[in-house]
């Protein structure tokens, strides 16, 4: 049986996945396909984080261990994407800049929720 906090976090990720998918469909219907593709990247981040968190049960059954595991992964993602963003800016790669910024925005939002739920135990 998962704790209430875990359930809240998973529900949040599911709900954001659905709402971003709706935004994507709205953008496609509005003939804004490139921006819809950026939203697909955002959806993907919520799904990846959910997958990692669910898989963390293989690392440990302890909630605190699972939370630390995810925190480490999120930090790693942030460092990687920040470095990709810097590289894209150096090369004036406008497409990659938007893609990396979208990833980092989604990640910041997830980390914010994550902190609100488990802040005191991190």
């Amino acid at each position, binding site marked *: 049986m998962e704790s209430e906090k875990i359930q809240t976090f998973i529900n949040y990720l599911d709900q954001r996945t659905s709402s971003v998918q709706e935004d994507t469909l709205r953008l496609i219907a*509005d*003939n*804004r*396909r*490139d*921006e819809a593709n*950026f939203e697909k990247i955002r959806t993907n981040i919520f799904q990846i984080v959910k997958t990692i968190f669910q898989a963390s049960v293989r690392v440990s059954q302890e909630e605190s261990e699972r939370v630390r595991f995810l925190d480490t992964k999120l930090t790693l993602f942030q460092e990687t994407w920040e470095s990709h963003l810097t*590289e894209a800016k150096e*090369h004036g*790669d*406008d*497409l990659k*800049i*938007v893609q990396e*910024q979208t990833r980092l925005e989604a990640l910041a939002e997830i980390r914010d929720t994550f902190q609100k739920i488990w802040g005191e135990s991190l």
Partner: protein
Amino acid sequence: MTEENAIRLFKCLADKSRLQILKSLAVEDMYVELLAERLNLTPATISFHLRKLSEIDAVRSYKTQYYTMYSLRQDTFAVKILDILKEQSDEADLQARREQAYRQKVIDAFFQYGKLKSIPAQRKKERIVLEEIAKAFEPGRIYSEREVNILIADFHDDFCTIRRDMISEQLMDRDERGYWRLV
């Protein structure tokens, strides 16, 4: 306007945000942040769209004291659609353009910021990648093995494999004097 350019233009314009940007620029020249505010998009998204519009010569930019301003290129939109439809398509020309598009796709997939991400497993793709690397060598000049390795290492760490493959693909040749580019 060539058929290929017309397709690129129409494809690029088939996007509401880009049309909104062009409509705004039809009224007055603007900078990225102002467009972002007016269209409720992030500056990065606006820059992305402006880059695409620049690629089809729909907009041009110029610098002022504080901002890079963007303006509409009236000449691109002065072309009549009927004139584009009346243009002849040449099949040989189309074939060459398809080949060029394929080459560019392979190059975009395997190179990032001038570095080779990985050596393609498929021979046809590897040939394209090797041809791209071969451009780093001046035609007619003889290079020592060390110079060849250094030049290839700018693209990928596995310079031995690439150097050997360039010989076997007859992009380069060698004798006791050194290496030289063939094509």
